[in-house]
């Protein structure tokens, strides 16, 4: 990193880069709190079919019946009664960039969406508050039969597909927060890739939280049919507010035989957001599922992208980066459950803790009975940058089948090597630059898997985080 770049990065400011917010201007906002009436209201407002309303109400019962998790991070401070569970930002979906309200465009300008647009992105579905208001899908995708909609439109226009798959990967009663999401979900992406279609450009959607105390409960469903391929990119930023905000998404992915899906997330919520997300994919014969999961923001993230390897020779990969700064707890990780024979998986986790932050890995590797010939490897590395920070590793390995099965797990926790810093400084770098470079190198195996603009953004964010790290 050159000095000029350091200066450029420094200019971006010590304040949270995306910590601006626009005045509220909403068409519909539910009352605070949660009750069957509010759930009915949300469902009625969206004109949903009866079965979805019933699913929501059932899920609400599950949510209320389940206790808060007593492991992971501290979620006891979430005040579920002070949250708005549904806000609809503008009356109808805009069809082109020019039609969008100025304050929404203003927000996205700050996030660099127009530039992304220029970069031949296949489609941009940006979520502002709870519902996707802007959507563009390239003609060529439409002509291939690819569906890329917000989830609400997906339900309206393709009810049969949604009904077939909704809640099949993550049942409403999977865990407390998945139940909550099922009860009050709004927005998210709905993607269907027909057999044999390979989408070369990543599909992207930006998510934002804007109203104070507003939970965002997007629901994403991705179906990759046989021999198809899609790379979906989800990036999150949120303005800073003084009271805590809750983000609890559910992402369900079905990868059919020989299909391949890659799902990339760069999570950078402001540090007052609780980010409690359930992500799970099922991969059938010869399919490949990859989660690339970067967690930089939020107050508390509890997220363990999972892959169930259901068909023979399916392959799963989870790449996870967590960067925990001051006041942050990143409880990240990944899960691979091998149900079918000759399946394979790799989980690679890199976590960095700094300024009293708590980062870590929590995961599961399970080999079910009958899943012969499974190969799996889990590698977790953690860097601790100062004395106040903390790192945790909680890997679980459960093997119920032995024939041809081999599982490996390794983890290390250490600080930045003094020799590395000394070497770089002897080549003329400042201590801060040297530390930033070592950290960049540490996360390199995962950053190199990101699309270019995300890799650049992630590197910048890490440099921002590293500012002032050397006293």
């Amino acid at each position, binding site marked *: 990193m050159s000095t000029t770049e350091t200066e450029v990065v420094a200019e971006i400011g010590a304040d949270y880069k995306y910590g601006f917010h626009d005045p509220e201007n909403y068409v519909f906002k539910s009352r605070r709190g949660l009750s069957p009436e509010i759930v009915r209201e949300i469902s009625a407002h969206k004109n949903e079919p009866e079965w979805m309303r019933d699913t929501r109400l059932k899920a609400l019962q599950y949510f209320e019946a389940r206790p808060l998790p*007593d*492991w*992971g*991070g501290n979620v006891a401070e979430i005040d579920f009664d002070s949250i708005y569970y549904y806000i609809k930002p503008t009356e109808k979906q805009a069809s082109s960039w020019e039609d969008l309200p100025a304050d929404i465009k203003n927000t996205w300008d700050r996030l660099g969406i127009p530039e992304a647009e220029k970069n031949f992105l296949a489609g941009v579905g940006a979520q502002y508050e709870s519902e996707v208001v802007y959507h563009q899908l390239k003609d060529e995708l439409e002509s291939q039969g690819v569906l890329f909609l917000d989830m609400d439109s997906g339900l309206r226009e393709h009810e049969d597909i949604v009904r077939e798959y909704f809640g099949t990967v993550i049942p409403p009663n999977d865990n407390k927060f998945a139940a909550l999401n099922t009860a009050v979900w709004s927005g998210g992406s709905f993607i269907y890739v027909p057999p044999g279609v390979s989408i070369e450009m990543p599909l992207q959607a930006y998510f934002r939280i804007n109203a104070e105390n507003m939970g965002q409960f997007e629901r994403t469903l991705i179906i990759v049919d046989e021999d198809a391929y899609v790379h979906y990119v989800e990036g999150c930023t949120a303005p800073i507010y003084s009271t805590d905000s809750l983000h609890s998404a559910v992402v369900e992915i079905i990868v059919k035989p020989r299909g391949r899906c890659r799902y990339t997330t760069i999570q950078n919520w402001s540090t007052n957001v609780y980010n409690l997300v359930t992500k799970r994919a099922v991969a059938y014969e010869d399919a490949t599922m990859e989660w690339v999961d970067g967690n930089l923001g939020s107050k508390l993230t509890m997220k363990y992208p999972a892959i169930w390897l259901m068909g023979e020779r399916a392959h799963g990969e989870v790449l996870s980066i967590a960067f925990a700064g001051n006041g942050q707890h990143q*409880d990240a990780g990944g899960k691979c459950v091998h149900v079918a024979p000759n399946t394979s998986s790799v989980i690679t986790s890199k976590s960095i803790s700094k300024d009293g932050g708590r980062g870590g890995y*929590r995961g599961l590797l399970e080999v079910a009975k009958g899943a012969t010939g499974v190969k799996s490897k889990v590698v977790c590395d*953690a860097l*601790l*940058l*100062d*004395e*106040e*920070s*903390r*790192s*945790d*590793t*909680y*890997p*679980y*390995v*459960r*093997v*119920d*089948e*032995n*024939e*041809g*099965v*081999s*599982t*490996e*797990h*390794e*983890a*290390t*926790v*250490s*600080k930045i090597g003094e020799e590395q810093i000394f070497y770089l400084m002897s080549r003329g770098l400042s201590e801060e630059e040297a530390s930033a470079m070592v950290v960049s190198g540490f996360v390199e195996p995962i950053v190199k898997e990101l699309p270019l603009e995300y890799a650049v953004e992630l590197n910048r964010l890490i440099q921002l985080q590293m500012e002032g790290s050397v006293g």
Partner: protein
Amino acid sequence: MANASTDTIAGKTRAGLSREEALTQYHTLELPSPSEEHWRFTDISGFDPDAYAVAEAAEVARPDSMLDLDTAGTAFAGEGGIEIVSAPDGVTFEPLQDHELLGSLVGVSDKLSAQNAALWRNGLLVRVPKGVELDKPLYARVSNSASGGALFWRLLVIAEELSRITVIEEYASDSPALAGYTNAAVELFVGAAAKLEYVSIQNLSTETWHFASHRARVDRDAELDWVAGGFGSRKGKVWIQNDLVGSGATSRVTGAYFADGSQHLDYDTFQRHDARNTTSDFAFKGALRDTARAVWRGMIRVEPDAQRTNAYQENRNLLLSKRAGADSIPGLEIMANDVRCTHGATNSPVDRDELFYCMSRGLTRGEAERLIVRGFFQDILDRIEFPPVRAAVAQALEARIPKA
């Protein structure tokens, strides 16, 4: 999980309870269930501690030992009593009575430890004064011999500053099909610059429920070298905790286990670094056959002031049949930054390539497999310093390796 360290032995220990208070706890507390994190993979719902009779004084059995030892002191204990056969001069080696340190490391943390605290009758106290070194080991054999009987056992070892001793503990059953229940609590104090070698080998009948809590406190510049061997028992749980409380303290725990039939072994280990410049090194290897299962949990916790910690934990399982199973749950909770903490865990069957290679050189499949199993355990055996213990563990493993 996140709060794992607080619900290990340390967190809930309530020392200084009277027997009556402990008994009340025993009656109040439920048997641990799989809904509790540490018992998730060890379901003991078929076990009823009240179904085992607490025996009155009876003759202490002396089943065959696995070890061939020349000892400085020997004790035999059973359901009904403890016999000190020989004791060295200048060292306390006597039946355990009430002691100020008793219960300070292993107190009441659950129903089973409460039962031990309330009902134990026989135990051993070993106290080695400052600077005393014993060349020969101190040995205790704890045997259950009463069918349907419960055996409660306590061991308290106090190795004072600069002392050097070896304490060997062997759990055995008087007959191979004896149905019983053993419940042990072991507390080890390793004083400044002392060295304690502690060996605990368990070869109980496969009809014995075995629960044990072993915890050591290692002081400044002290060294603890621990060997744990697990071959017998039906099901249960063995807790192993090391607290490194003084700068320069070192602990090394070497574990070897082999289970077959329907045995279920559970090792729950905890390496707590509470001082600077401390080192711990835990390595457990196990082989499993038939429908046997092993659960291994490990946690390395480095407290904020424990800079320059070096901690390692390793668990490797060799699965010798299709229906054997293993759970490995290593864990790290690190709150200091100038540390080196690593762990590794593997589960694998006998490597087909290795098998093929050996067979291509003329070995039968059975011979090849035996060779591979021996090789698997070799580095664990190499870690055991005391030759008779190394020989005994090697022998116990050898006896279990499938015959050609």
